[in-house]
């Protein structure tokens, strides 16, 4: 039970925080589309993205049950390592001032500028192009959420808690988005990415090891230890490569 709880809460937290980041990024693009071309193409694109996402989940979800557990854990573990360590690397470099922090206000401005440029070139097709931008944002960010939920639940009956965490985050962001009608620039995105990168990397090491037949000391509790080690190494990495903010590369 202790081991199970040790896995449930990190799974919920990782799914919630990761989905929060993805939902904020998707919302920024949908809002940019809505600002330039109105809510119709933005809403239709987002809705189409959600429908395709649901179809992908419905089509591929049941197939997972046919994959042998060790193979599933190994593949998911490797993908989690690639995904989590990619996030962690970027979060470390951002925290150290090597690359600029992700700024939703800048992303919003860039997206609206691009849509306006498209408007200048292809006025007649713009609603379609704007809807496509909204569709792509929801589909790609949504795929990341789906992957994270599947990966965190990988054969351990954690699908419901991880899905609940992801759904709560998406509803929260959509709710706030409806109220404020502008990008959620105050979300500490790099801190969230740092935390999620650590969690996903820890889960990645655990699942990959399980897939290879490694008997981890402490069983599921080992994940907490791995997360602590990733946190320590990441913290050390930030200190080692830290640069003054103004020296950050574009």
């Amino acid at each position: 039970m202790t081991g199970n709880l040790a896995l449930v809460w990190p799974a919920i937290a990782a799914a919630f925080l990761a989905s929060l980041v993805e939902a904020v990024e998707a919302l920024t693009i949908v809002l940019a589309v809505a600002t330039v071309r109105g809510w119709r193409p933005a809403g239709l694109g987002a809705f189409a993205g959600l429908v395709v996402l649901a179809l992908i989940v419905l089509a591929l979800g049941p197939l997972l049950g046919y994959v042998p557990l060790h193979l599933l854990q190994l593949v998911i573990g490797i993908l989690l390592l690639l995904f989590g360590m990619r996030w962690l690397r970027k979060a470390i470099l951002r925290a150290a001032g090597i690359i600029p922090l992700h700024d939703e206000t800048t992303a919003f401005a860039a997206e609206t500028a691009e849509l306006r440029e498209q408007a200048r070139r292809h006025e007649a097709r713009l609603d379609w192009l704007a809807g496509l931008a909204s569709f792509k944002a929801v589909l790609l960010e949504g795929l990341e959420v789906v992957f994270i939920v599947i990966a965190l639940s990988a054969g351990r009956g954690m699908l419901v808690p991880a899905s609940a965490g992801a759904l709560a985050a998406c509803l929260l962001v959509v709710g706030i988005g409806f109220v404020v009608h502008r990008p959620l620039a105050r979300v500490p995105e790099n801190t969230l990415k740092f935390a999620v990168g650590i969690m996903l990397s820890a889960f990645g090491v655990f699942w990959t090891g399980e897939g290879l037949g490694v008997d981890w000391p402490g069983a599921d509790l080992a994940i907490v230890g791995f997360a602590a080690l990733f946190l320590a190494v990441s913290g050390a990495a930030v200190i080692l490569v830290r640069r003054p903010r103004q020296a950050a590369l574009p």
Partner: protein
Amino acid sequence: MSILANALRELIELFVDDGALALAIVAIVVLAALVAALMPQLTWAAGAILLLGCLGALLLNVVRAGQR
């Protein structure tokens, strides 16, 4: 066609941002898999390679990126 290619590229970019880090992770997993397969009584060694390898690869990659 270009829309499909773009979508595929963005899908790959979900997992691979820095090629060197991705390659290092795959190499570490292959090494750990070899150890686990050749010495099934020493699975802890495969686990240690996996964990320490990933931590080391991350640290080295970030330090190199910081020096560029």
